[in-house]
């Protein structure tokens, strides 16, 4: 080791600490021999095998950094927002809840310390949707799950958060179990429950005054959606459900952990002992189940495959509802605001027509078919027919009743939740002529 005079740089080791330095070098070489790897970021703590060469602290910071970037660069949460977090109990939504809580706590600390306290801190509520009566899941574990959910949420304070435990079937005056049970196609059943879930979450948000809905959808979840939608012929509408922001709903939906892999979120939960509900793998005979196992095989072959899928789908054109309208960016720093504001092109952006069941934008072909059928039927069209004509081809195939199903078209229509029926395009156009009061 070179020893030099006082003009040397700070990296040089003074003579009197040679003993300490020698000890450190010895320790390093011993560690090399016992192959203890250091974190590639901070080079201080031990790198964890499951954390891609990072230590636990840097790994958490890396994930939180992704979350924070998603929230700030998409202006997801503003100070006056009342945010509802959809918590399924699983690891992904658990981490979303944890990070939102951390962001809120930090904002509260800033507010406490601030002299003016001009900007408020956003409030957070949590909702757990109880659905086991509708689908074929085991209901005997429901009480345990709910108890765990309560315990998790009550531990996330200050600030405290309202917890809404909601029975899905109580939200609508329909026999949802009978409705879901009448759908023959297994994939259609699962997808329909997912659409009901969104409708229910929006209902809760509306009733309790929340203006934003946070979903804990991870990069892996989106990769699954990309493949499932492709396989179901939904290539046109695929980009709608995978962007950071979705304003199709009264309470816009935001995905703050969209860039985090499921595996990373599970690892974080394990590292930090974040309590979450174990989701039992049920045997899936549906397309969604097949896609999940296909992705699992691809992940074994190459752990970056999910990111590649996300990147490919990210190059598809999003819709105009995948961005907030310009007046929602008032809390964004002015230097960033131009990024969000629409550039006036002189041409109005076309608004999409949405399927009333799944809210997917209809393709030009589907719209043309709908209009053509409507013209043929004229004003003699029944409300049920008008609704069915407004649905996309995927819902037509896998959800709506066909000749061979046990339930009639009328029977199925009568069981549909009213908010879903009201979304139908043709209904809007002919509602003045409808005689039935809906």
């Amino acid at each position: 080791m070179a020893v030099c005079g006082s003009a040397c740089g700070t990296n040089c080791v003074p003579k009197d600490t040679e003993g300490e330095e020698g000890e450190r070098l010895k320790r390093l070489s011993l560690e090399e021999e016992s192959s203890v790897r250091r974190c590639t970021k901070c080079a201080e703590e031990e790198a964890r095998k499951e954390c891609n060469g990072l230590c636990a602290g840097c790994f958490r910071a890396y994930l939180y950094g992704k979350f924070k970037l998603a929230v700030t660069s998409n202006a997801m949460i503003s100070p006056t927002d009342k945010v509802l977090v959809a918590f399924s109990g699983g690891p992904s939504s658990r981490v979303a809840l944890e990070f939102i809580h951390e962001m809120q706590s930090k904002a509260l600390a800033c507010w406490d310390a601030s002299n003016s306290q001009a900007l408020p801190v956003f409030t957070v509520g949590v909702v757990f949707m109880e659905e086991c009566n509708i689908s074929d899941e085991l209901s005997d574990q429901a009480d345990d799950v709910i108890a765990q959910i309560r315990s998790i949420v009550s531990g996330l304070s200050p600030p405290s958060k309202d917890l809404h435990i909601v029975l899905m079937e109580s939200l609508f005056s329909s026999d949802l179990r009978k409705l879901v049970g009448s759908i023959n196609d297994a994939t259609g059943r699962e997808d329909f429950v997912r659409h009901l879930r969104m409708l229910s979450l929006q209902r809760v948000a509306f009733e309790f005054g929340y203006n934003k809905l946070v979903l804990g959808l991870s990069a892996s979840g989106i990769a699954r959606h990309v493949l499932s939608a492709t396989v179901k012929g939904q290539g046109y509408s695929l980009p709608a459900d995978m962007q950071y922001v979705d304003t199709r709903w009264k309470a816009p939906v935001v995905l703050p952990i969209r860039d985090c892999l499921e595996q990373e979120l599970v690892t974080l939960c394990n590292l930090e002992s974040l309590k979450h509900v174990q989701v039992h793998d049920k045997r899936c005979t549906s397309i969604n189940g097949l896609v999940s196992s296909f992705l699992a095989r691809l992940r074994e072959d190459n752990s970056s495959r999910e990111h590649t899928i996300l990147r490919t789908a990210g190059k598809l054109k999003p819709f105009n509802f995948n961005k907030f309208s310009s007046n929602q960016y008032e809390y964004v720093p002015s230097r960033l605001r131009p990024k969000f504001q629409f550039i006036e092109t002189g041409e109005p952006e076309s608004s999409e027509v949405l399927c009333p069941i799944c809210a997917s934008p209809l393709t030009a072909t589907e719209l043309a078919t709908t209009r053509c059928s409507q013209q043929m039927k004229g004003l003699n069209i029944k409300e049920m027919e008008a609704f069915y004509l407004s649905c996309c081809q995927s819902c037509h195939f896998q959800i709506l009743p066909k000749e061979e199903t046990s339930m009639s078209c009328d029977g199925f229509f009568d069981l549909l939740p009213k908010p879903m029926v009201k979304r139908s395009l043709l209904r809007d156009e002919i509602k003045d002529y409808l005689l039935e009061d809906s």
Partner: protein
Amino acid sequence: MEGVEASEKVKRTTPRLCSLCNQRKAALRRPKTLEQICRECFYNVFEDEIHRVIVENNLFKPGERIAIGASGGKDSTVLAYVLSELNKRHNYGLDLFLLSIDEGITGYRDDSLETVKRNEIQYGLPLKIVSYKELYQWTMDEIVKAIGLKNNCTFCGVFRRQALDRGAALIQADKIVTGHNADDIAETVLLNILRGDIARLSRCTSITTGEDGPIPRCKPFKYTYEKEIVMYAYFKKLDYFSTECIYSPNAYRGFAREFIKDLERIRPRAILDIIRSGEDFRISTTTRMPEQGTCQRCGYISSQKLCKACVLLEGLNRGLPKLGIGRKKGGSGEDQEQSKWHLENRALSLHGKHGNVEY
């Protein structure tokens, strides 16, 4: 008791009738629609659907010289047979030729070429064979010996595409038709999503490609299920070669193929749904797409300065088997010569990120 037995016996012996003609006995269940139909109706719907695809998509014009890419396998054999039939039946007015590529795979291609030679006689269509040896001075056997079994399909696919175009030019063809079926196209859509190839994703569902080039190529079997092609060939007793390429087991396409087979079992129409999704994808205008140009060395169509075939050939001839394979990395893992080659050709050889099997 006797009455019950008698009615059961009647049930067993009464044949199910074809759901289309209601006259003949149903002989098969149609893979695409699961309808139970007779052989004659199957031939009719199969041929009729292909005829409609050809007409609705304006695939051909009267008087055109059409090179049918013929490998001796089921797809190209059925394609040659059906196209020949429809050409006569509906007066397309086409001049049909068989064009075969000999990749030089012993125990596979030499056998399948014998099948094509028989097809030449059976269907009365003139045959032209073009070989990798004469075009590139390398056979696939030699290539696999040099590079192993990991990326051999990349070499074969890239070389075959050019070989087809060159062969078609030699026989002065106006168009090339290939037997790519619905399963192939669905697999390609999935593969391009998995590999991040947005440029290919935007092109791979087009029924005709290369329209702005010298020899366009089209795929009349775009909506035809592989299972139905096999069924057609089986019932018609067509002569085809049914063994898989001996070098193919490690192809990444195998992942997508297995998935699609499982999918078809749950929902047969999923194959067409994947193709529809591919047709409906809208690429964001901010995405950078490659521009079409020509290769500086051989003049072939290329989005880079050198076409993929030239890059791969360069690698083979200089004993650099990884050249042109996978993503371009600097530094580690490359020997000095590769680094030097890269430095020299950095401006020229910015090959695409995902230079793999081309459609």
